């Protein structure tokens, strides 16, 4: 099988989808001639033309707003928000417009757009370019949310997002773009909305998504060397949320940990923890533990940056205590 990077898988997904569906246009800052701040749309303008790879001024509210209007009138836009941190600029268009249009208008019309963006730490990008703001999205009914961890999912989840009738926020992880994996993109993908059990063990369930899946798997390998076998669940999409898979494994194993790079308080981990505690209470042998980002802004210092979010080492340490 050929090796492919996360970035190339995303580009391949856009390229293939745009070839199949002529209503898809990409709109955003530097998506055309520059090829995307992280190179995801590199050279697509040569294949699909400038009328479908639309370079915009630096106007995030109008980029998302224009995508909403285009989605209501016959196109399937992919709006690129260069950093998820810029959600602060454009949240009205996403949360008050895109997310609510189908509902407010009584089901007359949907907004089939994809907002592609990237988040997370790992590049010393500082407090305004490193956040994990998926909780803002998950907290907004009407928005779907996909967060691929693997190269194969980067491809398949983006292709699936581009068939959805409702707005999808697609959050890539900036530290994963250069990650390579051997993939067979022709193999049948998991269905949209289904979690992947990346590893199965009987001592502990680790529920996570995006880059933390890789950290959890690394931790699980270390734990295995000490005789602790973890199940690692990669949620892939946070909305829809495949709670059935979580429930099945937590009830089987009895111990659960939730891992998220986002800040802990009122975060995605908090919601998952609450649901597991509520729904699997009788099966739990220990409290559900959250391993999440510290409740602080992200620093540029590599030490402070990496120290403020979960790592494989921290996940392994906590898992060991939880299973002791």
């Amino acid at each position: 099988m050929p090796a492919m990077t996360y970035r190339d898988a995303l580009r391949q997904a856009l390229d293939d989808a745009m070839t199949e569906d002529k209503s898809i246009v990409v709109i955003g800052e530097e998506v055309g001639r520059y090829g995307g701040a992280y190179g995801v749309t590199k050279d697509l303008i040569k294949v699909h033309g400038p009328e479908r790879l639309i370079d915009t001024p630096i106007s995030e509210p109008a980029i998302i707003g224009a995508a909403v209007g285009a989605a209501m009138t016959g196109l399937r836009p992919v709006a690129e928000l260069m950093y998820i941190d810029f959600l602060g600029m454009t949240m009205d268009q996403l949360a008050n417009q895109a997310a609510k249009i189908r509902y407010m208008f009584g089901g007359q019309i949907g907004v089939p757009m994809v907002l592609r963006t990237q988040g997370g730490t790992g590049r010393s990008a500082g407090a305004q370019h490193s956040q994990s703001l998926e909780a803002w999205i998950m907290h907004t009914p009407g928005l779907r949310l996909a967060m691929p961890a693997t190269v194969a999912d980067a491809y398949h989840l983006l292709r699936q997002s581009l068939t959805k009738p409702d707005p999808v926020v697609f959050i890539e992880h900036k530290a994963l773009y250069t990650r390579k994996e051997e993939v067979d993109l022709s193999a049948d993908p998991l269905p949209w909305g289904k979690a992947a059990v990346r590893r199965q063990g009987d001592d502990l369930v680790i529920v996570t998504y995006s880059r933390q899946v890789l950290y959890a798997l690394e931790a699980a390998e270390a734990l295995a060397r000490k005789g602790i076998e973890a199940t690692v669940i990669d949620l892939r999409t946070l909305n829809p949320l495949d709670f059935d898979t979580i429930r099945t494994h937590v009830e089987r194993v009895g111990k659960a940990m939730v891992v998220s790079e986002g800040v802990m308080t009122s975060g995605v981990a908090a919601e998952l923890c609450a649901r597991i505690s509520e729904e699997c209470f009788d099966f739990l042998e220990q409290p559900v533990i959250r391993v999440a980002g510290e409740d602080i802004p992200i620093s540029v210092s590599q030490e402070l940056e990496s120290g403020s979010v979960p790592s494989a080492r921290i996940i392994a340490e906590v898992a060991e205590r939880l299973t002791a």
Partner: protein
Amino acid sequence: MTLTANSHLAELYRTMRRIRTFEERVGELFVRGQSAGSMLHLSIGEESSAAGVCDVMKPQDTFTTHHRGHGIFLARGADPRRMMAEIGGKETGYCHGKGGSMHIADMALGHLGANAIVGGGIPAVVGAGLSSKYLKQDSVSIAFFGDGAMQQGILYESMNMAALWSLPVLFVCVNNQYGMGTRIDQATRNTAFDERARAFGLNGAVVNGLDVEEVRDAARWLIDDARAGKPGFLSVEVYRFFGHARMDKSPYRAEVEELEGRKKDPVLFARAKLIESGLESAAALDALDREIAAEMDATIDFAVESRAPALSSMFRDVYAVGEPEPEPVRARIDRVLAREDA
């Protein structure tokens, strides 16, 4: 039709009178306690902006409106009964009671939605303009908003993009002098709004909203230019006759100013013009007004008699039909506690 002559001004008068009367009935619906809430923003005094611009729109054209958009939708051809039912939060309304006055929409008439966020609906017309250009729809998309939105950044981002990409887009500011309780000269130093549009490379025009025919003529050339790829901006200068919303008694402005402002009445101006020019008799116009009054009275009956939406419809239309749905909170609680009991 009880009019004696078939002049186009008479048609515009009819549109404006229907808007005026509809808005008066909205006020009555509120007084009778039959409206869904009090966030009702009447466009009395502003009828010429709706009637004049919508008169020159083509069937394929699309538009968004602001929170004071009843008149625009009506001028576009909306069914006032379904509008009133929506304002009453009823199942028979355009949005089945989920949208109400500020979120009414109708795809069949190209109404991409009213908006309760000042400026919120503006960038959608840039996207609609992109669709029109890319899919060769030959449609113009028009954003209607108030002077309050003239101070929102999204307007200028949208103007800039529309001009940059030569989109078939028109921005229409219904300048009723007030953003809630703040008069425009208390909100900005330069109130010559057309200058702002021209600074971005758009056509820009200001028109006195007293005369609906002037509004219509200005809208015509701006829409024609927009369709040909030169986007534009039109400010229609009117006076908001009443408060911001139903609960607002306008304590921020003097009664003498209001009395003066209400003299700028586009409905009465058109009526006088019709009579003075000999196009219509006062009696014929009175008869038309009575006909419209009866039509609009019936909208209240329709709204009051319509059913409220079923509670179960609450979970419908968050996502498309057939897609995973949100689980009702009560259902989840029941499920969790049923396990505990077992």
